[in-house]
């Protein structure tokens, strides 16, 4: 196993006090990102988990750097159906912010295909063999997720590793009930299978889950006010009102 070596300082994003979204496509629902702060695992509410998923691309002729280049360029295409990733036109570079329109468990969406959660991520680190996202306040998870590739026993391995806490008590409840974890695991297993399939490999995704901190952080319970799922649901429910208001203004 090898790890990316000596990236330039430009591999890291500069600190930002508040997130800003640009180049939002017309069809995207842009909520819960603009003006928010990023939140790491220390700012979340729930238990802290380290989740690692990986797939070995046996027989594929691709280097770790080649894999990461392809992964960055085609990032949304590997996601499960119903989930949208609106990345910046300039690519996944440090400091860039992407908008996410996510489906619910099992790929369910709102009326007219509306997202169940509108949120985002910031690219905080990117080099030739890995890139890392950090989540904004209101996202399901507070933390970091790193996408990397390395060589092991003659094969390239694609890996996703998340260090996360549920952002607030509501999200934590979904994890404790099990469906939150299942959705997360299904999501990234699907993604890695699609990455492998891109190289003609029917990969067996493996995962390792470690409970890093069993305690919840009650001091962060107020994060619930920024819950992106609740805010997106309110936005979706208010769609008829917005439509009616639009009619009266004509």
């Amino acid at each position, binding site marked *: 196993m090898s*790890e990316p070596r000596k990236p330039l300082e430009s591999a*890291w994003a500069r*600190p930002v006090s508040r997130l800003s979204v640009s180049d939002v496509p017309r069809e995207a629902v842009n909520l819960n990102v603009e003006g928010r702060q*990023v*939140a790491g695992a*220390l*700012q979340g509410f729930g238990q*802290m988990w380290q989740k690692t998923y990986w797939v070995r691309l046996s027989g594929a002729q691709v280097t770790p750097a080649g894999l990461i280049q392809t992964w960055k360029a085609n990032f949304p295409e590997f996601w499960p159906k119903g989930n949208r990733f609106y990345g910046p036109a300039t690519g996944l570079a440090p400091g860039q912010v992407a908008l996410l329109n996510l489906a619910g468990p099992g790929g369910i969406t709102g009326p007219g295909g509306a997202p169940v959660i509108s949120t985002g991520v910031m690219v905080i680190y990117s080099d030739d063999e890995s890139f*890392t996202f950090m989540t904004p306040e209101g996202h399901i998870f507070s933390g970091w997720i790193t996408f990397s590739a390395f060589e092991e026993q003659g094969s390239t391995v694609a890996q996703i590793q998340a260090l996360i806490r549920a952002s607030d008590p509501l999200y934590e409840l979904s994890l404790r009930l099990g469906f939150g974890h299942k959705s997360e695991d299904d999501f990234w297993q699907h993604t890695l299978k699609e990455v492998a399939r891109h190289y003609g490999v029917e990969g067996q995704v493996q995962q390792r889950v470690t409970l890093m901190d069993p305690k919840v952080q009650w001091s962060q319970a107020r994060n619930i006010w920024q819950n992106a799922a609740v805010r997106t649901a309110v936005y979706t429910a208010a769609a008829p009102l917005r439509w009616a208001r639009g009619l009266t203004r004509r």
Partner: protein
Amino acid sequence: MPQANVTMTVRKVNARASVVDIKGEITAFAENALMDAYTQAGGEGVRAIVLNFSELEYMNSGGIGLLVTLLIRANRQKQRLLAFGLSEHYRHIFELTRLNEAIGIYTTEAEALAGI
């Protein structure tokens, strides 16, 4: 898994604090070295672990995750985690990742020890 390119030396500066001098790279591969150093540093009565980053050559996002893990372990033992010797670049990274909200950042060892 290859060897991490890092060495860590533990100094018990007084009954309440230990300093870990880090030389080299903090990546995910430094886990064993960092956790071993913590075990040496965190004896009975130690209230603060001070990380000396003066000779840090490189840290990636895997290294940030490692520091979070260390912080959780230290907090569980009711110990504080402090740091000094960070370059401006790595201070920015601590700010970006909001680690600076949980790890006390100081310019020098003397300042860090005075903060205990």
